């Protein structure tokens, strides 16, 4: 009783005090999450891979072993050698340079899809568990109906007026994966809404937005993370498919999907050129999934004992 009163008084007297402590607690928690992420084997490997990926992307913006426009006409389809680490393709362009430049494009797509999916998906969840039953009902059936529209239709729709573009890939992927996220995360959000502290907060007249932000969001964060990582990983796969069909990344911009597509038609003659883009895509997808798993485990107090104690 007395304890409650004192904290309340503290808050009333000086909001800054509370803000300061919560910031400190947040920092401490971030430290714990980061530490447990890096002590897990999957988290460590995935983090190292992502760091490397970011580093390579940044380097590729200013330097690649060969310029992308450079073609070595005398060395077409050459095997890996000291001058061309992964060989050259049918035009004599350096495969390694194109893959390096492609990693920047791919990073852009992955990050954009992750951010847009997280924002749109979570707002969709917020709408679909809202207090107003009319809004709730309409949003749920609409999302359920829209989820069956495939990515390729959206991509074609974007490609029709603007031609193949990175933005089209991002829009198509984010659209499909946000709906997917809403559908998967909604049950845990409903569980959170039915909990007594949300009922209590509603009785106190706290705004719906604040309730969602402080009480419901922390509950659904683990499954949101898993879904966002799945979405951004699948975006890489979708990019390669869309680019091959000619509605993804335009052909003059480097991307892993483009490298795979250019090699695809000659695979029976020169299999090695098709090998590397496929390997790098597969590894990247696995790593993003691992990162999502590890992050979920370390951010969830139910699975991370140290976070619970703090």
């Amino acid at each position, binding site marked *: 009783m007395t304890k409650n009163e004192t904290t309340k008084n503290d808050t009333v007297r000086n909001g800054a005090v509370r803000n300061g402590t919560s910031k400190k607690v947040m920092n401490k928690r971030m430290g714990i999450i980061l530490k447990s992420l890096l002590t897990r084997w999957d988290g460590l490997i995935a983090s190292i891979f992502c760091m490397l990926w970011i580093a390579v992307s940044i380097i590729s913006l200013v330097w690649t072993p060969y310029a992308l426009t450079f073609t070595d006409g005398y060395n077409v389809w050459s095997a890996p050698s000291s001058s061309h680490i992964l060989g050259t393709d049918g035009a004599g362009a350096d495969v390694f340079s194109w893959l390096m430049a492609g990693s920047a494009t791919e990073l852009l797509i992955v990050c954009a899809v992750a951010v847009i999916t997280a924002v749109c998906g979570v707002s969709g969840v917020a709408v679909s568990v809202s207090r107003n039953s009319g809004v709730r009902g309409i949003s749920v*059936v*609409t999302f*359920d*109906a*829209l*989820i*069956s*529209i*495939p*990515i*390729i*239709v959206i991509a*074609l*729709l*974007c*490609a*029709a*007026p*603007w031609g193949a573009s990175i933005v089209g890939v991002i829009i198509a992927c984010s659209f*499909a994966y946000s709906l*997917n996220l809403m*559908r998967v995360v909604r049950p845990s959000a409903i569980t959170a809404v039915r909990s007594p502290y949300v009922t209590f907060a509603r009785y106190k007249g706290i705004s719906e937005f604040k309730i969602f932000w402080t009480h419901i969001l922390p509950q659904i964060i683990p499954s949101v993370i898993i879904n966002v990582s799945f979405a951004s*990983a*699948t975006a*890489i*796969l*979708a990019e*390669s*498919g*869309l680019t*091959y*069909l*000619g*509605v993804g990344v335009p052909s003059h911009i480097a991307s892993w*999907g483009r490298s*795979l*597509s250019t*090699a*695809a038609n000659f*695979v*029976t003659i020169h*299999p090695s050129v*098709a090998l590397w*883009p*496929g390997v790098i*895509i*597969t*590894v990247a*997808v*696995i790593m993003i*999934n691992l990162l999502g798993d590890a992050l979920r485990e370390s951010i969830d107090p139910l699975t991370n004992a140290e976070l619970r104690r703090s």
Partner: protein
Amino acid sequence: MMQTAGVKQTMQAKQTVQAKQTVQMNQRNIIKTILSRIALFVVMLWIVSLVIFFALRILPGDVAAIIAGTNSSVERYRSIRTQLGLDRPLIEQYGSWLWDIVRGNLGTSVITGQAMGERLTVRAAVTFPLIIMSMIITLAMGIPTAVWSVTSQHAWVRTSLRVMSQILGAIPALWAGLLLVMIFGKGSGFIGILPTQGFPAQPLSSVSTFLTACASLILPAVSVGIITAAQVMRYTRSALLDGENANHIAWSMTAGMTYAQAVRTTGLRLALPQIISVAGVTFASMITGVLTVETLFNIPGIATILLSDMSERDLPAVQTELLLLAAFFLLVGLVIDMLQRLIDPRLRAQQAHTNQ
């Protein structure tokens, strides 16, 4: 004695009446849900048609310019536009397009002059068997391996199945197709037994052409199916484990089942609604892969006409094709939703409860 028997009888009669009433009410509820779901389907389709029509007209440049060619005069271009009705106001064009579709008239491709309906059915007759084959491979591989990865008594089997699903689910469909060509492709692979290019001309008259057609669909179907199987397996596995957390498995085991039996009967039955909804989403996500492998294996499915119409800016054809694709997938969503209500009594009970 007699009195109590009479009371019993009246009570029984009352109960049957009550049961009948609830059944009737349930039926009414079900019909209401089905009707509202179908109404939603129609509204969705209408919105999609609006989006498709106006999205395709954001930029100038149309099929008339392509037909006229680069060296034609402005007058000729104008006359072609009038002929095709492209100079009418957009609303009018939209209205006549929608009215034609509602009456079942899909129009003709303005470039080749073929009837759209005929053109699409010939292509769909290749694409749909491919989709269905991939779906069968997906389910036939995904669900048994999921059960196996939960029930196996060896830790290494469980772990390696999980690792395998992670790796297989991360392969792009295009690359899977390329790898399969390198392994099984006729003429180039290590075990060259399956055709990798083309498809016999339609209609498939004899048994041998039918078999050739099936053979040429195997590699494409497998290259899409394996990847989606890995995804279905992952979801099914987690659905089975959820059931285990809810103690259903433990209860079945107290009733005398072994662990594997309990997972196979109770666990799968409980996970079935989730598996169906995942299968529905997979169905939609599979189409990108299907179109990719169609192009890769040079199969004359809908991918080819869709992409060529797109690059020729044959907008009337593209908008009809996109609308039909969207309609098909919205329909799949509708069916999945209905199926889920049909097999999951919990959903129906919930609905009856909320309606009362």
